[in-house]
């Protein structure tokens, strides 16, 4: 059999060429295996155990942690919160980023200054941003003077009825976090959109103008189709980034009031450090990972279809 294979040109022993090639990718493979593949399987392994994070004993409990999380209302509430923040970012954040990119793509005065300013929020520390916004949104007052900047402004223009404790009011807390998250993140989208806009061939615009297209038609028939690949990349990055947002939540509300601003990552964190359920936290992590993989796969499919169109 072996001889037959050799006759047919097959050789199951790796050739020196293959070994040489393999040796080149070996460093990357080792790093990938140690830092990605092993943790992935270990997380899955721990998800099936009742482990407090300290003990040597890690009793195997099968899918019990997964069964528990199915009934964990707070967990699913936190997943919904992440979707809410993501929807907010997908619409308002990206719309703002796109509009600003369009504006900066034109010949306007001080456009380099705007480009710089719009990119400041993304490079700031998320914790610092959280604390600064916490100060802006603070409730409370002394002798009629509001501590929070937003409430102070609202009162000074006569909108006292809108004054509230933005972060402690369950009706506003999550939206406020979504707004701050969008403010913090729109700069990335702006830069990517701007880069995309700048590579569109200007002859296309000229041709559209010659054909009598107005600004609106040019936008829909030239800019948007040409920007589609960039838009899709920005959408994917926005979804993955927003679903995993948690630093702002930690610095602004710590998931409160009650569970109103809990997001999946904070639930995973609290399960590990507050309630010492490492096994359960790993189960949450695996589930959340699967949700993100499913989302990415769906987006990839949409991207393929759109590209075909």
């Amino acid at each position: 059999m072996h001889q037959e294979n050799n006759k047919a040109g097959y050789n199951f022993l790796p050739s020196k060429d293959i070994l040489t090639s393999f040796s080149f990718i070996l460093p990357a493979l080792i790093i990938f295996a140690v830092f990605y593949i092993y943790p992935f399987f270990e997380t899955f392994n721990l998800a099936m155990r009742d482990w407090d994070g300290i003990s040597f004993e890690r009793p195997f409990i099968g899918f019990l942690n997964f069964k528990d999380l199915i009934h964990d209302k707070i967990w699913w509430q936190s997943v919904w919160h992440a979707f809410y923040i993501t929807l907010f970012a997908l619409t308002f954040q990206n719309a703002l980023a796109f509009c600003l990119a369009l504006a900066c793509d034109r010949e306007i005065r001080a456009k380099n200054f705007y480009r710089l300013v719009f990119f400041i929020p993304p490079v700031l520390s998320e914790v610092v941003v959280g604390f600064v916004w916490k100060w802006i949104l603070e409730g409370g007052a002394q002798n009629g003077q509001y501590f929070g900047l937003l409430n102070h402004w609202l009162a000074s223009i006569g909108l006292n009825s809108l004054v509230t404790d933005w972060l402690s009011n369950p009706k506003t807390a999550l939206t406020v976090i979504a707004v701050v998250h969008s403010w913090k993140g729109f700069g990335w989208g702006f830069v990517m959109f701007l880069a995309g806009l700048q590579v569109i061939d200007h002859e296309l615009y000229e041709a559209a103008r010659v054909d009598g297209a107005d600004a609106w038609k040019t936008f829909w028939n030239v800019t948007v189709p040409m920007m589609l690949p960039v838009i899709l990349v920005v959408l994917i990055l926005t979804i993955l980034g927003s679903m995993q947002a948690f630093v702002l939540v930690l610095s602004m509300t710590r998931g409160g009031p009650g569970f109103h601003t809990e997001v999946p990552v904070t639930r995973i964190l609290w399960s590990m450090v507050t309630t010492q359920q490492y096994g359960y936290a790993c189960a949450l992590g695996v589930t959340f990972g699967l949700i993100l993989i499913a989302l990415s796969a769906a987006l990839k499919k949409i991207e393929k279809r759109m590209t075909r169109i």
Partner: protein
Amino acid sequence: MIKNLFAGLLPAVFAALILISGCSGSAKDQSAITVWHWMVDRHEVFVELAKQYYEETGILVDFQLFAPSDIYSQKITAAAQARILPDIFGVLDVRSIFAKFIKNGFILNLNDSFNENNEEWKKSFFEKALAVNVFEESNHYGVEPGIYAVPLDVTTEMMVYNKAVLQDLGVQAPPATFEEFLTLAEKIRAEGITPLVSGWSELWLIDCFASNYAFNIMGQDKVMATFRGEVPYTDPDWIKLFGIFQLLAQKNIIDQGIVTKSNKFAEQDFALGRAAFAFNGSWGVNVYHDMNPNITYGVMPPPAISKEYPFLVWGGAGSSFVINRGTPNKDKAIAFLKWLTQKEQQQFLAEKTKNLPANRYALADLPSELYEFSKGMENSTHPTIWPAEEDLLVKEKFTKGLQSIIIGEKEPEEVAREVQEIKERQMQRAKNRR
């Protein structure tokens, strides 16, 4: 070909070596003692003391700061999992976690060291400071009896009040009862000042306040019976406790924002005179002094609501250090901690950081506010010395439920029902897993 093979393999081997060396322990000076701690306000003083210790003994002590405390706790847990704990560290978590660290062999039993020379070292501490680190005979955690940590200081959690605000209202003495407090708080609110502030986004702090009143309303035995599952959270006494938070919120004694306020922000509010009362620990003396040296304030236990049971505040548990059972520097670490808790060093720490010393002979010239905090020790208790401990998930639901009551989202009865549901589920689960 061979040359190519080597050209490819060499970087691979090199990368693997880097990885392996990266995963191994750092090449630290084995003779130096490494201490991991979380105390930002004390770090410089620790470093100064380490220098002094080096001059006296020639032994290097490396204090490494990891803050804030919740991040520190995560680091300790991760280090325990990786078996890379330092020579000396602290465990900030609840007693059950402390017990797990001990049972898994991460912490050295210091009983012999404390008891040698006719208990000389042991006797130098305040009894309550040491009590939190003691595991008695046949404790329910199954830990071998002994003393497992060395206390550095003691803390009490009390209420502070702004003297100027009270004087402006013509009030000379702080309220003694809960009714008096409510009446005064309403007057304070009418003046446009927040009556009471605290960092109740930090769940342990709201739990501390709640447990103070739980002990006062129903006594320690009933609270412990609840933790053991013998009394439900739907009991009228617990409803009464939840009702206190509703009352505080409804009467505007606390701001709605208290539930998302971290204690640092709450300390700032009090130091800047934005709030008349604050619920805080004795470490606040140092913080208030740094934020506003001119503030004049007094210290009092939260006003009692019932006369049936004594009002106990949390106290005794300050910062403590433990010794890694696996360290080759055990003797050096013990010697250093003995030196650190001697009268002179404790006085130095107390003076510089305005914290109550754990050494009973080191009561130096304390600020008057700190002295008032120290009086709270007379009627203090602490979860670490309670005979029972609540399940951590139940505790989370309990404290988050209190937040829901404060923001007016839920009624006390509703929260009580929800907490009891979790309690029963956790008890059933514990039973099944046994």
